């Protein structure tokens, strides 16, 4: 079990095995592919926003390392009900808290893939 390991604790492995919000939306406001060029982690993230700019639904499909997939699963749980501005204001420590572990410099891009993709997706909406 994950007991030997700080990083691969059960919560992370559980999100990796059975990611939350996995799938696709029927009418997303925005879809964006996020990639980690070095490791090949990839997610396709979809968001649905209402007229007030509040996230009403989220879904993603992805493949990659446990940290990237668990990080995305955890962050997607947090997005519903938040405004675009609130999501843009989220930073790395927020994700670290969700993961429950401080991720080292070699894996930080994996951990932040979900958040950064969500932020880029929202930024692309507002620039339209």
């Amino acid at each position, binding site marked *: 079990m994950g007991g030997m390991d700080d990083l691969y604790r059960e919560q992370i492995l559980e999100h990796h095995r059975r990611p939350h919000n996995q799938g696709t939306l029927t009418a997303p406001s925005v879809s964006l592919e996020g990639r980690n060029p070095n490791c090949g982690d990839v997610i396709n993230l979809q968001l649905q926003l209402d007229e007030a700019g509040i996230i009403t639904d989220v879904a993603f499909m992805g493949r990659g*390392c446990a940290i990237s997939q668990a990080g995305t699963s955890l962050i997607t749980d947090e997005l519903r009900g938040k405004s675009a501005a609130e999501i843009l204001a989220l930073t790395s420590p927020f994700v670290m808290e969700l993961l429950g572990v401080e991720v080292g410099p*070699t894996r930080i891009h994996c951990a932040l893939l979900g958040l950064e993709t969500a932020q880029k997706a929202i930024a692309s909406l507002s620039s339209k």
Partner: protein
Amino acid sequence: MGAWHNADGTLDPVKVRAEYPIFKTQPGGRPLHYLDSAATAQRPQRVVDAVSKFLFTANANPHRGAYTLAQMATDGYEAARARIATYLNVPANELVMLGSATEALNLVARSWGKANLRRGDVVLVTEAEHHANLIPWQQITREMDADLEFIPVDDVTGEILWDRLDTLMKLKPKMVAIAHVSNVLGSIAPLKEIAAAAHAVGALVTVDGCQAVANMPVSIPDTGADFYAFSAHKMGGLYAGGGLWARADLLDAMAPIEHGGDMIHSVRLRDADFTTGTQRFEAGTPDASGAVALAAACDLLDEFGREQIHAHEALMIERVIRELPEALPDARILGPRDLQKRAGVVAFSSELIHAHDLAEILDRRGVAIRAGFHCAQPLHEQLELSSSARVSVAPYTTHEDLDALFVGLREARKVFEG
């Protein structure tokens, strides 16, 4: 045999390790099991000693000064070039010393390509190429309106399908650019046959030798290559170093792509004449210390014996391939199963454990492997892999290193199977 061998003449990696000070350190407080030599080799003591000696006793700007010390620097640099040339069995006046193998491959693509490629001409590469032997050809074929075509790989094993060459040669390529040893598949390219097929239709052959020159005997004239690029740091030299061998007539016909000091015959305000030979491609002050380092690395590799290095590495690779399925049952090994066709590296993927997670867990046991695309993203896309894990070996790789690898693999499996 020398100080590095067993009584039966085989290489003794434990004796070899004594020459590599890094193994006396404990990165992160753990003994180091370095299985990433295909990315960069560890540095021998004598390489660094040779650099110190050169810089402390013969340091001046080569090819310039009129004083004794400057001549010593020039002699040191040119002697190093000659030593490296001997290692590869080529004449020193055909060996261009550059900053990296990447620079060498870019030089061929940009200089030879610019002068020789026309609209509709074909450059042929494999789907498995390292980005350094792919992107320069993408760029120059786009610029010259030429076509880039591919020798395919098997979708499952990744093996390069050399039997397609006959058909592909009907495209009458102008250049065939391939790795001597694939940095992911570990496969040794049948260069002689490829060169014969290429030359028969008038194509030249560029070989990326990065994963071959430190791992097996390489005599460039026997490969049939017209251009051969290699990297110093994968041989135990310094980081910034590499070279390009090219046939003298091809070198003479090529225009330099970098211009400046040390490559000119005479300069006027509005134009300049360039020197002949290799120096034309070495604008600016050369990295003489890097050349001296690489020459020392060549000495050491020859003392180990390149047949012996190859045999030792084959033994290590054979064990990895044999034991991997038991340690990680869903491991998909990339590249040929026939050990005769392999050198130096073995890459694999697992649905259970992503390569990055594996590398992270192995790191806790001091086992250093490579995870990701290994600068060969198109190959991984072809195999529908989001990454692979790569183990690469060297003269200093021991069974203890592999023991640690397999203990770590089993641990990782336990974590992920839950």
